[in-house]
């Protein structure tokens, strides 16, 4: 016979640590049916054989069994519907009073409960004493001491739990409420619940007394019975001068207060704990913000600027690129060889003279090339040449054309550059290895293209993000586990809640300025579902690293590199978040559920390495699994769209297909009218926007500098605004899908981003046209209507909801 045990407890009670200690690696992470709350199950280590399994179900961390939060409703439904054989209730021994509040509710369910008092090592260290035997007697269930962190008392706990589960003895709650409440409860049981199993009556009676709408719905009571018991409830409320829900809550706490005095002795009352001391500094009125800034700078510097970038570059250019030098052996010799090559072949005096002339003549890109030449940076020079070489060749009748002076082959690449494989220990990248293999077996061109560019490229796109994510997730896991994350919410709450976001939304947005994919994934730390969804939807508005080349390109090509273009892009992103937050929180989709504004600031403690690594790995692997499929699939589709096409009326495949001839180009041509009201209704801009879905920097690849000839700067800025705000790249869409965990919400997020981008772009172009001439009356009217709607949404009053509207499925 298999046994099912539920693990319940407050957040921060050490529940995750205990779950990991009990189940080891036998965990299955899924979702509760119908909702996006994560469900973890596992087989208990050392107690599960084939026909005698002990399954532990980890309930969400909850404070109560109220009908108001999703987690609590999910937990309640599980306990009522699936009737586990026992409940392990983990409580934090150093915070006994509030933790026992949930216990008083769990023991009413009739399911056998075993209480595990965690963090007993801290309790003892503080010199406090807990009489578990006395507590056990008062509660009417087994109470055992554990330390989940040090794995103390775990075996004893699980043996007791299995024994209790197998005994099948129903739990009977020992506490009773005030006389008049008990009187009303007895009436309710008699009137409504007499034909239910006796062990379940108590819980349901209390819930009916509280007028719990979810239980009333569940029992399907007719209005006659409801009005009958309503009279009892009302009498009791009048007598105690409070509403029924508050009466029960107060009674529970009063009961806990009455038993705690005899079981628990606190030695150092009023003495400052370690947490108090840390908080004196960390959440100090003056020091909190500077400390927060320093922590954020460290997180950003390590996970975005340094280690994260190294890891991502290695994954993209090494593992999924040409290859890399093992442990960097040979890197410096190779770099020297490249410098020597550049010095002798590229940075020649006549090249510099030509560039200086071009720079004075004001040719776009000449300054960048010149700067690279002066810095002797061959990599930057090569890249700039790729972007601007053509421009130099044609401007001013080719007076400043540097191409004939350089060792450039017919394909426009630098020839005879040093081969990195000749230096040190060179490990070829996966694409190189696969290509060699495919060439060796004489694979067909299109199949080779599919495997290399479609599949390997797509897998690379997924895995390329993982190393950086691992670095970030280690940080997040640490900040969460040590208790600082709750302080971040405390410090930043005031700013973010105005936009329907949480104080914890700061981290996703900060990381999002580096890369939107880990940014979106970082939103996991936000418990409140509504805040989390809002954060996921708006994080990618912040310009990420891959959008910088677009900004640079537009600013160089159309604004002569004016200083304000780049800052304005960030300003646009922040404004988009604020405006979206204020608008969305008033929509039906977001106004639906009440958000609890009351938050615990847990005690600080040092997390274990094992727990941090496990949390990191859970998140990284769920990105690979659940975001990976969508990224891979869409990479292949875009690859196919760009390589198959119609040349001279014949459907053909070519790896070097001109974009205009490809299927992508044909689609782009067909839909480019959509962008006419935004000022960039041409095929190139449309294809660039589609390619931006693969990766935002692809926009630049499609668009040479020359392609902007004839485009006004206003249209260019509208193009920039659209590409910054519209649907992010497929990798980020995959991350959004993973975090939303719901197809409808993913689609809504992407659609909202596109519509919002379109609206902003439309307003910029049409309203801007008033000042630059070329005014279009219809377009202007449309833009003004959009602007008026946005302003209306911004000023419309906001009303918070009071009830959880979500319907959860009763059965899996």
């Amino acid at each position, binding site marked *: 016979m298999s046994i099912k045990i539920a693990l319940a407890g407050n957040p921060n009670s050490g529940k995750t640590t205990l779950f990991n200690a009990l189940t080891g690696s036998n965990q299955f992470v899924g979702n509760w049916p119908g909702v996006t709350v994560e469900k973890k199950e596992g087989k208990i280590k050392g107690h599960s054989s084939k026909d005698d399994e002990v399954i532990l179900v980890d309930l969400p961390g909850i404070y109560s069994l109220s009908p108001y939060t999703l987690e609590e409703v999910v937990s309640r439904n599980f306990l009522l519907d699936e009737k586990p054989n026992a409940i392990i209730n983990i409580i934090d021994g150093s915070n006994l*009073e509030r933790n026992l509040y949930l216990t008083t509710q769990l023991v009413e369910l009739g399911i056998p409960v075993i209480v595990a008092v965690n963090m007993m090592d801290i309790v003892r260290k503080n010199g406090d004493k807990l009489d578990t035997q006395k507590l056990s007697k008062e509660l009417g269930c087994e109470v055992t001491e554990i330390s989940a962190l040090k794995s103390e008392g775990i075996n004893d706990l699980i043996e007791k739990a299995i024994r209790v589960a197998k005994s099948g003895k129903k739990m009977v709650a020992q506490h009773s409420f005030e006389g008049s409440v008990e009187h009303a409860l007895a009436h309710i049981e008699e009137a409504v619940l007499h034909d239910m199993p006796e062990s379940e009556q108590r819980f349901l009676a209390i819930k009916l007394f509280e007028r719990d709408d979810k239980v009333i719905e569940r029992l399907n009571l007719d209005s006659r019975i409801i009005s009958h018991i309503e009279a009892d409830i009302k009498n009791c409320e009048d007598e105690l001068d409070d509403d029924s829900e508050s009466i029960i809550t*107060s009674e529970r706490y009063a009961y806990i207060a009455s038993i705690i005095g005899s079981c628990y002795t606190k030695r150092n009352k009023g003495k400052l704990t370690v*947490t108090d001391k840390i908080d004196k500094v960390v*959440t100090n*009125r003056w020091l909190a913000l500077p400390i927060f800034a320093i922590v954020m700078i460290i997180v950003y510097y390590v996970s975005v600027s340094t280690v994260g970038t190294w890891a991502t570059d290695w994954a993209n250019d090494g593992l999924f690129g040409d290859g890399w030098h093992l442990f960097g052996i040979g890197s410096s010799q190779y770099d020297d060889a490249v410098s020597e090559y550049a010095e002798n072949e590229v940075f020649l005096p006549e090249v510099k003279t030509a560039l200086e002339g071009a720079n004075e003549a004001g040719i776009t890109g000449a300054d960048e090339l010149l700067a690279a030449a002066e810095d002797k940076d061959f990599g930057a020079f090569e890249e700039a040449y790729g972007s601007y070489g053509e421009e130099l060749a044609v401007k001013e009748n080719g007076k400043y054309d540097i191409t004939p002076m350089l060792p450039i082959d017919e394909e426009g690449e630098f020839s005879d550059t040093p081969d990195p494989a000749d230096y040190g220990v060179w490990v070829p990248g996966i694409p190189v290895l696969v290509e060699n293999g495919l060439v060796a077996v004489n694979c067909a061109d299109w199949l080779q293209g599919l495997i290399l560019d479609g599949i390997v490229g797509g897998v690379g796109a997924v895995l390329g993000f993982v190393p950086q994510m691992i670095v970030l997730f280690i940080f997040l896991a640490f900040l969460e586990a040590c208790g600082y994350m709750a302080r971040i919410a405390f410090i930043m709450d005031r700013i973010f*809640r105005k936009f329907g976001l949480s104080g914890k939304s700061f981290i996703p947005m900060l990381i999002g300025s580096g890369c939107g994919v880990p940014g979106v994934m970082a939103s996991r730390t936000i418990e409140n579902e509504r805040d989390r969804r809002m954060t996921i939807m708006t994080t990618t508005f912040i310009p990420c690293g891959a959008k910088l080349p677009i900004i640079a390109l537009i600013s160089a090509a159309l604004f002569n590199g004016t200083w304000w273009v780049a800052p304005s892009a960030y300003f646009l992103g922040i404004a988009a978040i604020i405006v979206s937050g204020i608008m969305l929180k008033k929509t039906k989709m977001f106004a639906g559920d*009440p958000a609890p504004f009351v938050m615990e600031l847990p005690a600080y403690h040092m997390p274990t390495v094992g727990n941090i690594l496990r949390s990191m790995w859970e998140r990284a692997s769920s990105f690979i699994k659940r975001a990976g499929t969508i990224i891979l699939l869409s990479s292949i589709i875009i690859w196919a769209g760009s390589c198959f096409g119609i040349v001279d009326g014949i459907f053909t495949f070519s790896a070097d297909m001109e974009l205009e001839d490809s299927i992508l180009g044909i689609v782009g041509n067909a839909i480019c009218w959509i962008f006419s009201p935004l000022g960039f209704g041409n095929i190139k801009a449309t294809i660039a926007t589609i390619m931006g879905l693969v990766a935002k920097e692809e926009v630049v690849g499609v668009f040479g500098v020359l392609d902007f000839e004839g485009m006004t700067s206003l249209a260019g800025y509208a193009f920039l605004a659209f590409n910054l705000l519209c649907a992010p790249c497929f990798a980020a869409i995959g991350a959004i899908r993973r975090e939303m965990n719901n197809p409808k919400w993913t689609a809504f997020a992407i659609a909202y981003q596109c519509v919002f981008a379109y609206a902003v772009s439309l307003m910029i172009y049409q309203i801007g046209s008033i000042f630059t001439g070329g005014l279009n009356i219809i377009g202007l009217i449309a833009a003004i209507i959009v602007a008026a709607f946005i302003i209306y949404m911004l000023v419309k009053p906001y009303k918070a909801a009071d009830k959880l509207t979500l319907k959860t499925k009763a059965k899996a």
Partner: protein
Amino acid sequence: MQTLKDAVIGQTVKVKRLHGEGAVKRRIMDMGITKGVDVHIRKVAPLGDPIEVTVRGYELSIRKADAEMIEIE
């Protein structure tokens, strides 16, 4: 009516009654702020809201708008 919002930092006050209804009220009570309990006001967040209080031996952060629902003696 004196509410928790009006209390000064460092003060310990006794809760007299909770106003309001539904989710927010229940949440506040679930967290242990019930009639008759002592609440110690620890500090105010650097930006002026929320406030940090000690109740039933642990630290709780609560927004001023919600603290206004808590009547104190």
